[in-house]
C-alpha cells in the first residue's frame, strides 16, 4: 500500500459515475431505438409480389398491375404498380417498368401508328424498343427500368424496378 494515487472518495466517485452512466445508457438506448426504428428499416429490401401466372404471358408485351406495400418511415400505404411483361426469343420473361425515363409519364405498347412494335410515351414522343432500349433521337436518355423477377410454382413474382445503363 505504498502508492495510493486514488483516494477512497475519488474511487467511489468514479465507480458511481461509471455505473450510473451504464444505467442511463441502458435506459436511453431502447428509447432512441424505438424512436428511430422505422427510419432504420426504410432501406430494407422489398418483398417479391406475385403478379400473374406464367401461362398468361406471351410474346407480345402485356400490362399487368400489382400492389406493393410502400413504407415511408412511419407511414405505410398500398401502391398499385404495373409492368409490361413478355417472353423474349430465348423464352426468358422480361418485366419492364412503364415509367418513361424522360420525365416520368406512363408509356404504352404499340400505340404510335407511325412506329409499330415499340413502347411509346404520349407526353413527348419518347420511344423504346421491345427490350426497353431507348431509341436515339427521342427525348429519353436511358432504357426502361427492369423489374427483378422470379418464377415460383408457375407464378411470376416481381420485386424492385432497377435502372440500366443508357444506350
Amino acid at each position, binding site marked *: 500500500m505504498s502508492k495510493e494515487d486514488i483516494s477512497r472518495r475519488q474511487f467511489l466517485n468514479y465507480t458511481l459515475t461509471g455505473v450510473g452512466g451504464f444505467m442511463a445508457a441502458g435506459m436511453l438506448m431502447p428509447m432512441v431505438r424505438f424512436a428511430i426504428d422505422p427510419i432504420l428499416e426504410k432501406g430494407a429490401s422489398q418483398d417479391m409480389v406475385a403478379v400473374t401466372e406464367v401461362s398468361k404471358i406471351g410474346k407480345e408485351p402485356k400490362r399487368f398491375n400489382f400492389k406493393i406495400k410502400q413504407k415511408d418511415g412511419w407511414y405505410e400505404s398500398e401502391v398499385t404498380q404495373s409492368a409490361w411483361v413478355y417472353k423474349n426469343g430465348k423464352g426468358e420473361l422480361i418485366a419492364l417498368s412503364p415509367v*418513361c425515363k424522360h420525365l*416520368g*409519364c406512363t408509356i404504352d405498347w404499340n400505340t404510335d401508328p407511325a412506329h409499330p412494335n415499340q413502347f411509346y*410515351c*404520349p*407526353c*413527348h414522343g419518347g420511344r423504346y424498343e421491345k427490350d426497353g432500349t431507348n431509341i436515339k433521337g427521342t427525348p429519353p436518355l436511358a432504357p426502361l427500368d427492369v423489374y427483378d423477377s422470379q418464377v415460383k410454382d408457375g407464378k411470376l413474382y416481381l420485386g424492385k424496378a432497377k435502372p440500366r445503363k443508357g444506350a
Partner: protein
Amino acid sequence: MKWSSGDITVYQQSKEFVDTAIIPLLPVSFGSHIRTSASMGDYVTLIGEETERQLHGRLFLLPPFTYLMEEDSETLLLRLHSWVKELKDEGLRHVYFLTSDPEWKKREQELGETLLWMPVIPMETMDADYQEEIVKEQVKQLFQVILHKWQES
C-alpha cells in the same frame, strides 16, 4: 407534376416540357348538398391524381380551386380568369378545368378554357379494386381529349 416541393424542382429544370395544367374545381356546401359535394371531391381528386400519374411529365395538377356552392358565380369566374392568366404567362398553354359540378357545365362558354366535366360517380360503396377500375376507365376517356389537343399543337 403535382404542387409539391419535390415536383417543383423537376418542373423548374424542365419547364419547356410542361405545357398543360389541370385545375380541379371543388364545390363545398354544408346544406342539403353536403354528401354530393363530398362525393364530387372524392371523385375529382381520384381522377385528377390518376391523370397526373400517367402524364406526369407534361401535365401539372394544380391544387384544387374550392368555393362555396352558394358563392356568386361572377366573382368565381373572375378569379378563375386570373388563375388562367397566371398559368398562361407561365407558359402553360393548355389549361383544363376538371369538375363534377354541373353548374360549370352551364357556364362552359364563359370559362374560356376546356371544361372537363365528369358527372359524379359515388365511390363510397365500391370496394377499392372496383374504384380503381372505374377511375382508370374514365381517365382513358379524358386522355382522348388531352392527347388530341397535344397532337393539334
